[in-house]
């Protein structure tokens, strides 16, 4: 089961979306900052990729940060909770009832690091609320976090507590000041730098907003209880046969978005 996530920078890129969806055989497409109407993108997906695509139900269309499309009714993807920056979807993978938390973190241009870490804490509080209300801890968080995997908000216990290796999350939780905090696995760590098959990150910026050049703002993190379902994640640089990379090797902002899309692959046969 494959999920495509792409922040498309308030552009109209439905043709690229269709090309990527077709070439990756994505089952779920999640778009952030989509300037095309969801109806138009749906029609394009149905026409060019598969008639099976549909728009899962949402609580309210106003203020939706994400356009979601799904091609398999069994996966569900209906919205069960909404805040200003998150949309929580029911997701069935194999025998698991999972909550897919779509995230759009507060932006780097208007919010300093402290505020973005605070957003991560707010997100952690929201997960606690969801755990109580929806009676599950099987969370997958996906989106543009506007933080790198190594920033405090992503790694500290009071934030998202997301670790770089599967082995780190095996024990399930860590204790901080007498309280237990569940671990998440962040596979994006594995995609940093030159020694990978893909680009060094998902977005390139050398201004003071991007002191490392490349950043990995687009991420997926997985609750330790369902790490076994995770298969792989890949940063995409092509839309079908079309490259979305500039001559410098960065996301081609003239042609597509300043973010590269990511494709997450889950196993459906894991019943752990």
């Amino acid at each position, binding site marked *: 089961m494959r999920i495509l996530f792409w922040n498309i920078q308030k552009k109209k890129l439905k043709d690229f979306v269709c090309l990527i969806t077709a070439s990756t055989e994505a089952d779920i497409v999640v778009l952030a900052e989509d300037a095309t109407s969801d*109806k138009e993108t749906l029609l394009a997906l149905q026409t060019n990729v598969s008639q099976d695509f549909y728009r899962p139900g949402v609580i*309210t269309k106003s*203020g939706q940060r994400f356009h979601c499309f799904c091609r398999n009714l069994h996966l569900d993807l209906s919205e069960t909770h909404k805040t200003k920056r998150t949309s929580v979807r029911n997701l069935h993978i194999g025998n698991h009832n999972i909550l897919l938390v779509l995230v759009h973190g507060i932006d780097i*241009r208007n919010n300093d690091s402290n505020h973005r870490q605070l957003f991560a804490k707010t997100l952690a509080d929201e997960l606690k609320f969801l755990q109580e209300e929806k009676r599950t801890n099987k969370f997958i968080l996906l989106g543009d976090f506007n933080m790198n995997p190594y920033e405090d908000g992503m790694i500290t216990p009071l934030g998202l507590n997301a670790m770089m290796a599967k082995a780190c999350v095996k024990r399930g939780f860590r204790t901080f000041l007498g309280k237990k905090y569940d671990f998440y696995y962040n596979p994006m760590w594995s995609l940093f730098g030159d020694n990978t098959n893909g680009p060094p990150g998902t977005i390139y910026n050398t201004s003071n907003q991007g002191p490392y050049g490349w950043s990995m703002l687009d991420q997926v993190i997985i609750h330790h209880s369902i790490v076994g379902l995770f298969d792989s994640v890949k940063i995409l640089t092509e839309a079908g046969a079309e490259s979305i990379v500039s001559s410098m090797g960065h996301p081609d902002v003239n042609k597509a978005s300043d973010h590269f899309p990511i494709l997450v692959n889950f196993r459906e046969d894991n019943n752990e």
Partner: protein
Amino acid sequence: MSNFWPNDLNLSDTQSPREILKVAQKDWYQGSNGVMELVLQDARTKTNNIMIIVHAKHVPSNRTVQLFSIVHRPNNPYPVTIQLESNDLPNFLKKTYESTSPYYGSAISALQTIAGSKEVSNPWVSDTPAEFRKKLGDVLKEGAVKSAIYNLTTDDTDDTDDTGENYQGDPEEN
């Protein structure tokens, strides 16, 4: 004869914001015949103030939406402020809105700061239980809250467009 006692103080009314929210919870449950609930989530602000996040819940579907939060200092339930979820509705769907665009608003307020002091009023701060009760009633009758209730209770099966205009985002996002 002197009169230094603040006459508007009612010492028999000492309900905390949380107790008042619990009354609202009961009212919602009874008023909706158990279909809608207010759910209170405890949290802390960055500066360690007490925060209660208020969600609306549609009981039959277990769908929830965040409505607003209240914040006060630890051990000091008053003053308390209500923080509305910043309304993402486009201006044409709001009954009232300020004509200043959010993008230039900050620049204007910065200029005002340079030009001299500026009094900022926060209509959602309450100093007493009675005031909080009234403001809580007001916020729960806000158009955005009513819409949230209707949206929660209605299954989204319509075929309308969610255009790019619906998503306004922040002035400059990345």
